């Protein structure tokens, strides 16, 4: 009997092959039939009989299960086409398979899709307008999301990105120290067991010479396993290996797909070609796939060079000096290890290294998932992008409201058709579904068109040019995340449109439309309410956009008027980053020679060096301890930005020294360390005393000795344009020689010629000294305004578009209401209403709508404009002028869009109207 039980259990499983409806109706009986059968067989022929019966049942199921499935579907079909069968006078109680919900849904939906598509085709203008509106609505969202994706979400590694981490440091003072010295990197790599490999990378600018000319490019100098650790796909040739990163190996580079196209015209024999970078010859061994753009967000990386081959582009002691923090470090986790474990391990190693070699630094190690952007880049990008996301979300709302209104108008026009459908037995649910499906089809078409829109706008934003010689490169191509977002946005649109449409269809079909005469009272009051609500929503959302755009425009204007504290006009700037393989002493001499030569050029007023040109977001910070300082409220040493400058710097940028003196050539390496602070810092440290002669201690990366203050400079802008009360310290170049400096020259010479003069002075001093990113200081300052300028132009375009949509939507609604109340208006005219009274009636309606829009929009804008705070300079987020102006514009738009319908209403001939509608 055991075999019988086994067969019975097996048969229960087998029965799962039948459709659920069939199982529900017959499952039990089916099973009992089998049980009778198998027991019978067991009695007669024992186990053999059971086996035979079971085999037969298997074959039987195999044949009948598909047939039963078809039966269920066919039943649903019949039920749909001949609903009378539902009312069978002899309903079989559980007598047959219930039509499965799935089959039901899908048969009906297919039918409805066909009807909806036909309806949409029959109204091509409305359909085209709706799709175009949605395309712009979804497309702008897609564009901004692609930017968010490129800037914030993209992982660093092309291959298995979840296992790749960035290793970053922090000093004891909490200052992020992202770079490690080569020696630290080497020791971390040798001692780590949680990471299967570590690689280091740094950004270097190159002068690239090929057969068809010379220009400046940016490249990554990497340790040997960098490309293979990340899993960078190579389109041609081979990747770089550890062997390329040895001193005796021939100098090899991998170039970007971009460079291959731009400079080598996609020649197929690119592998093995030569390229000269910073005056050294390299062999191209590979071309990287264009999906990889390096480890530095936005940087247009065109070449990857092994560190060993880059000695002439890095400074002389970068490999043997632990204070030269050159490399960003990334690692790949072992399959069985987590980032937390790696962090714990590297922390121990770093502490050991600090004990052994550099007790003063004692870095705190952090291991973070490797996204392309660093946390502070993400914060900056987020500051710029989140308000934009908010703005474009509003555009989508407006687009949806507009299309919904369009759909509603169409539903009203089709009232009779819908009523006929109801009369013929269509359920409300069916009707609602039909309308909802129209909304879904429109959204899908709009979503598809939006992808095209986004593809067009992508090219505008993927290559931003902050400086004439620097075009950033963002990878805005759609990936899974962007596609997912597009689907989500489209689905949300579909839900909104379908929902509103369906709701409305239900309401409309409940009004006795058939008894009416095609015209007359339309849609009922609820319909009017939905439309009025949608129009108010549109005005409100447009108002928000308008306010946002106006705030940004005002902000750009006030940013242009911000007192920089220096005069950028007439100054050119060039970065000398490549250290040319020289020692710091040699570098100092080279720089000083170049400055001396520049000073002799006629027309030059002042030539100077600085670690950063003023107003540079990468200006470093340091914590400060000061002699006799008044302790601050939070009892921590204050932070300040600092710049190392040469003596004529304050003349070159025209930044006045308000107390004490400027740096002179006497502030040499051998003399006592000196510093200049700005007014803010002086006031903060010594609110009631003279700062001159006091001593300051900075962090070691700024200055390892105490500095005596010799002067106070006027306040200026140092890191960002929007900063307030930034403390700043200047240190003399001669006492703090750096390898990478910016040359700043104030002259009366035309900037292009001046830049060439600087270049030739540098090459005269040293053939390896090259000035990168030549720019005027005005352009340099402009670059820091780039995000807000971009946001402003985008917001303006978007607000203009929204306003146009709102105008059209409002016009449509007012015209519709006029048509709806034509009889009433005609009656009024017949009873003696003056044209002015009629005009007031119509325009009053438009104004009421705009008032409702203001009631929605102003509070929402007050709440939402806070998002913009990070982008605003010198404008409050609740600027009354902006709010008043924008509200005025919204009212004006309402007025303008009611004028035409109002004049039509005024010209109504009451006799004609009353006759027609009688």
């Amino acid at each position, binding site marked *: 009997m055991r075999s019988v039980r086994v067969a019975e259990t097996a048969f229960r499983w087998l029965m799962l092959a039948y459709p659920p409806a069939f199982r529900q109706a017959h499952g*039990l009986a*089916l099973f*009992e*039939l089998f049980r009778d059968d198998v027991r019978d067989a067991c009695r007669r022929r024992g186990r053999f009989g059971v086996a035979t019966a079971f085999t037969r049942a298997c074959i039987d199921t195999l044949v009948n299960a598909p047939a039963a499935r078809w*039966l269920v579907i*066919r*039943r649903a079909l019949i039920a749909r086409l001949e609903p009378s069968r539902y009312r069978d006078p002899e309903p079989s109680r559980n007598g047959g398979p219930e039509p499965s919900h799935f089959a039901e849904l899908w048969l009906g939906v297919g039918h409805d899709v066909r009807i909806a598509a036909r309806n949409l085709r029959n109204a091509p203008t409305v359909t085209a307008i709706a799709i175009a509106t949605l395309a712009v609505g979804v497309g702008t969202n897609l564009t901004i999301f692609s930017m968010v994706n490129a800037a914030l979400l993209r992982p660093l590694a092309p291959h298995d990105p979840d296992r790749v981490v960035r290793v970053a440091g922090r000093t004891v003072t909490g200052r992020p120290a992202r770079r490690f010295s080569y020696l630290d990197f080497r020791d971390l790599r040798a001692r780590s067991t949680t990471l299967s490999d570590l690689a280091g990378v740094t950004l270097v600018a190159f002068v690239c010479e090929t057969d068809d000319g010379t220009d400046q490019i940016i490249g990554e100098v990497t340790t040997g396993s960098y490309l293979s650790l990340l899993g960078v796909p190579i389109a041609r040739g081979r990747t770089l290996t550890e062997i390329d990163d040895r001193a005796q190996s021939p100098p090899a580079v991998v170039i970007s797909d971009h460079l291959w196209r731009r400079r080598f015209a996609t020649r197929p024999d690119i592998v093995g070609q030569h390229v000269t970078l910073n005056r050294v010859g390299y062999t191209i061994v590979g071309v990287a796939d264009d999906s990889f753009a390096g480890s530095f967000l936005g940087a247009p990386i065109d070449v990857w060079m092994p560190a060993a081959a880059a000695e002439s582009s890095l400074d002389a002691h970068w490999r043997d000096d632990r204070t030269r923090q050159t490399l960003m470090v990334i690692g790949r986790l072992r399959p069985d290890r987590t980032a937390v474990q790696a962090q714990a391990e590297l922390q121990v190693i770093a502490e050991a290294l600090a004990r052994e070699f550099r007790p003063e630094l004692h870095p705190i190690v952090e291991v973070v998932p490797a996204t392309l952007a660093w946390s502070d880049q993400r914060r900056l990008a987020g500051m710029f992008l989140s308000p934009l996301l908010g703005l474009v979300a509003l555009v989508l709302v407006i687009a949806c409201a507009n299309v919904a209104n369009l759909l509603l108008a169409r539903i009203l026009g089709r009232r009779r058709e819908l009523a006929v459908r109801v009369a013929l037995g269509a359920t409300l649910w069916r009707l609602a579904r039909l309308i909802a499906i129209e909304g879904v089809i429109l959204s899908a078409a709009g979503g598809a068109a939006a992808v095209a829109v986004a593809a067009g706008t992508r090219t505008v934003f993927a290559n931003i040019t902050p400086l004439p010689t620097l075009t950033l490169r963002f990878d805005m191509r759609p990936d899974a995340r962007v596609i997912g977002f597009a689907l989500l946005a489209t689905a949300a649109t579909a839900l909104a449109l379908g929902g509103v449409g369906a709701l409305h269809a239900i309401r409309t079909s409940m009004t006795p439309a058939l008894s009416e005469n095609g015209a007359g009272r339309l849609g009922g009051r609820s319909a009017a309410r939905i439309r009025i609500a949608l129009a108010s929503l549109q005005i409100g959302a447009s108002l928000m956009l308008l306010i946002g755009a106006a705030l940004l425009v005002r902000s750009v204007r006030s940013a242009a008027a911000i007192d920089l504290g220096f005069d950028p006009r007439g100054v050119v700037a060039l970065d000398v980053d490549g250290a040319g393989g020289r020692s710091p002493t040699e570098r100092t001499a080279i720089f000083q020679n170049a400055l001396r030569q520049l000073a002799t050029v006629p027309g030059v007023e002042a030539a100077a060096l600085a670690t950063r040109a003023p107003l540079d977001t990468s200006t470093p910070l340091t914590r400060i301890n000061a002699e006799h300082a008044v302790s601050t409220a939070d009892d921590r040493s204050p932070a300040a930005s600092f710049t190392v400058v040469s003596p004529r710097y304050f003349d070159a940028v025209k930044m006045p020294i308000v107390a004490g003196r400027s740096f002179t050539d006497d502030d040499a390496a051998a003399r006592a360390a000196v510093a200049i602070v700005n007014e803010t810092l002086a006031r903060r440290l010594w609110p009631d005393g003279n700062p001159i002669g006091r001593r300051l201690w900075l962090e070691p990366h700024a200055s390892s000795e105490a500095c005596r203050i010799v002067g106070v400079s006027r306040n200026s802008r140092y890191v960002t344009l929007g900063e307030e009360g930034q403390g700043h310290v200047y240190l003399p170049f001669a006492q703090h020689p750096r390898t990478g400096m910016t040359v700043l020259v104030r002259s009366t010479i035309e900037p292009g010629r001046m830049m060439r003069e600087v270049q030739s002075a540098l090459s005269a001093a040293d053939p390896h000294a090259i000035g990168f990113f030549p720019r005027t200081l005005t352009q340099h300052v402009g670059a820091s305004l780039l995000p807000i300028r971009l946001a402003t132009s985008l917001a303006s375009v978007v607000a203009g578009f929204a306003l146009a949509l709102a105008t059209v939507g409002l016009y449509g609604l007012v015209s519709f209401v006029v048509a709806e109340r034509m009889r009433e208006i005609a009656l009024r005219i017949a009873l003696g209403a003056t044209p002015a009274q009629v005009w007031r009636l119509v325009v009053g309606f438009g104004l009421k709508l705009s008032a409702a829009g203001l009631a929605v929009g102003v509070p929402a804008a007050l709440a939402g404009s806070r998002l913009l705070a990070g982008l605003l300079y010198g404008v409050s987020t609740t600027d009354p002028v902006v709010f008043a102006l924008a509200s005025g514009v919204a009212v004006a738009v309402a007025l303008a869009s009611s004028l035409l319908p109002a004049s039509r209403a005024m010209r109504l001939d009451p006799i004609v109207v009353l006759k027609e509608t009688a």
Partner: protein
Amino acid sequence: MLLALSDRERHAYGIKKDLAARGDHREIGPGTLYRSMAQLIDAGLIAESDRRPAADLDDERRRYYRLTPFGRRVLIAEARRLEGLVDAARARKLITHPGRA
């Protein structure tokens, strides 16, 4: 199957046994049986019965089926059609006695 239900209501196993007894479907599988029955129900030829045999004969869980009036008409029509066919065969001397080819 219609024939099996023509004299009285039966449950599925009863139908199966009746078919087996008449010799033409000795080993009809449960799936085939129920699918065919579902088709007959769809076509309105048979229906599930409300009535039950006497309690002592009844198995609670079993469903009984009956012929609908329409089913009965179809069965009679089919029997007539077959009868006509058999008559025609006999007239052409294809068969002489009932039951022998």
